[in-house]
């Protein structure tokens, strides 16, 4: 039963990654070329999912949009992990009032949801894929910092760290040899969950027109366009939303599956 979660997650994520990879070399049609003669065609053998209001093949757009979605996820989660994990480990390792202050400052970021930060950045620098990625990344830093800190504090209290310290091992060596390997799995789980959240945030931002500008296709913008045709061509609103849901569900299940796999305590409870 537990394996099912993990496998389902891997399968769904693979589908999205595969769509993105294939779209680099092949799509059924040009994903940006406007064709007025082929507007709003329903699903057919030629256009599997039909065409949108510009006459662009929807299947092709969905495939290419997977690239943007994964790019934003990778960069945003990368920023959050690269900044948040060192903050968390450092704070857990050093302790004292300084680390307390650092964590409190990180906590203030919690009051800035990704979307609000992205709106601010878009207001200041103009909306782009970059403002979205950076905003989502910064807003996700506290989550990584907390997870890394909790893991570090736990490891620091263990006997083998005590043994290492009594042998005169320095803090940096303890961080590299004992803490990092122990914290890495939790960070991995967090990364998977954060990836799902990042995809949702990116979708909302591009729906609002605050992320990747056209003509680059994004699932969020496709939904915005589809809303115009809700009375005449409702199926347009189906596929991009489904794509977002599949991607997010995939990363959520992957995160849950990994957590169950890594946490022996949970595994015992399940049996």
């Amino acid at each position, binding site marked *: 039963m537990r394996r099912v979660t993990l496998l389902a997650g891997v399968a769904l994520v693979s589908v999205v990654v595969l769509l993105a990879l294939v779209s680099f070399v092949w799509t059924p049609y040009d994903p940006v070329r406007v064709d007025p003669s082929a507007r709003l065609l329903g699903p057919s053998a030629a256009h599997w999912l039909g065409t949108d209001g510009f006459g662009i093949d929807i299947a092709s757009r969905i495939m290419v949009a997977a690239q943007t979605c994964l790019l934003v996820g990778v960069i945003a989660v990368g920023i959050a992990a690269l900044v948040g994990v060192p903050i968390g480990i450092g704070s857990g390792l050093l302790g004292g009032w300084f680390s307390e202050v650092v964590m*409190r*400052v990180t*906590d*203030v970021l*919690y*009051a*800035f*949801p990704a*979307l*609000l930060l992205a*709106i*601010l*950045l*878009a*207001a*200041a*620098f103009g909306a782009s894929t970059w403002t979205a990625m950076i905003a989502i990344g910064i807003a996700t830093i506290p989550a990584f910092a907390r997870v890394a800190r909790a893991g570090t504090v736990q490891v620091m209290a263990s006997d083998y760290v005590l043994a290492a310290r009594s042998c005169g091992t320095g803090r940096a060596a303890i961080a590299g040899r004992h803490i990092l390997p122990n914290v890495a799995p939790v960070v991995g789980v967090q990364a998977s969950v954060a990836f*799902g959240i990042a995809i*949702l945030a990116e*979708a*909302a931002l591009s*729906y*609002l027109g*605050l992320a990747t500008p056209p003509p680059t296709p994004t699932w*969020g913008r496709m*939904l915005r366009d*589809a*809303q115009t045709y*809700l*009375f005449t061509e*409702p199926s347009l*609103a189906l596929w*991009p*939303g489904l794509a*977002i*849901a*599949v991607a*997010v*569900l995939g990363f*959520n*299940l992957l995160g849950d599956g990994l957590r169950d796999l890594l946490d022996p305590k949970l595994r015992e409870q399940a049996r």
Partner: protein
Amino acid sequence: MPNLRRGATRLRIRGPAVTVAIRVAIFLLSLVLASVLIFVVCAALPGDIAQVILGQNATSESLAALRHSLGLDRPLLSRYLDWVGGMLTGDFGTSFFTRLPVADQIATRLAVTGWLVFFGMAVALLVAVPVGMIAAVRRRRLSGAVISGLSQIGLAVPAFWAGILAVFIFAVKLRWLPANGYVPLREDPMQWAAHLVLPVLSLAVVQASVLTRYVRSAIVDVLEEDYIRTARAAGWTRLGALWRHGLRNASISVVTVLGLQLATLFVGAIVIESVFALPGLGQLLLDAVAQRDLMVVQGTVMVLVFAVLVVNTAVDLSYVALDPRIRTARR
């Protein structure tokens, strides 16, 4: 033994009053940090706002005059202090474009977002608490697994997509409810309610999924406690034992999530307002961003962040009320 005595006084002093005082101090500090962050990002705005307002053909004199009248030629620090000082007295500055007071604009929009968030959370809670309890009690049966699966799917659905689908089903197909727009409560209560149903539901679907999962896991944790087994041995039914002994214990972790979710609800409302063309804070903010109306952006973001911080602080303080162990604990 000076050390021991000092420890003892600290234990006595750190009652609820000190816990509350520390939390309030953190709240105020966070507000200051947030205002600096907002101001700095907005001040980093590239390009000349006066140029944006007057267009490319403006003379350098008129640009300088406009900059002066907007206060953009003054040093950053005094602009920041003016802004913060004004907000403390309820003056959020004037919009660069409409020349109307920002505070008035925010006030008129606040009600729409407020109703949305309030009802969204209420509906989500009304669904999540009973459903989460059922999922926890029946976790080894099919019904529990089905609820978990559904909530997992609900987590993955973007709220704005749920909104679009809801419009299609209830406004386009069934024609039961209006597709978008807003009518103030004072004008027509029935129309007001009709216009809020779909936005609230689409906001609540996602929230309910998140909350259901947390309620479930909180109650599963409680159900494994010894005192529940004791209560069962004393003849209480599973639900009876949960009702009598479990809910208060489970409520602590649920309240935490509730606070965090309330914060995301404010932000979720921005997107939902866009789906249903509701004239709330989100629409105000997005319009201001499109026009680069700095004062409105700053003010609106500050109000939203303020709301989030207030909720987070209230959640932390509620632990003190809910859990006597925290109330008297020495940290």
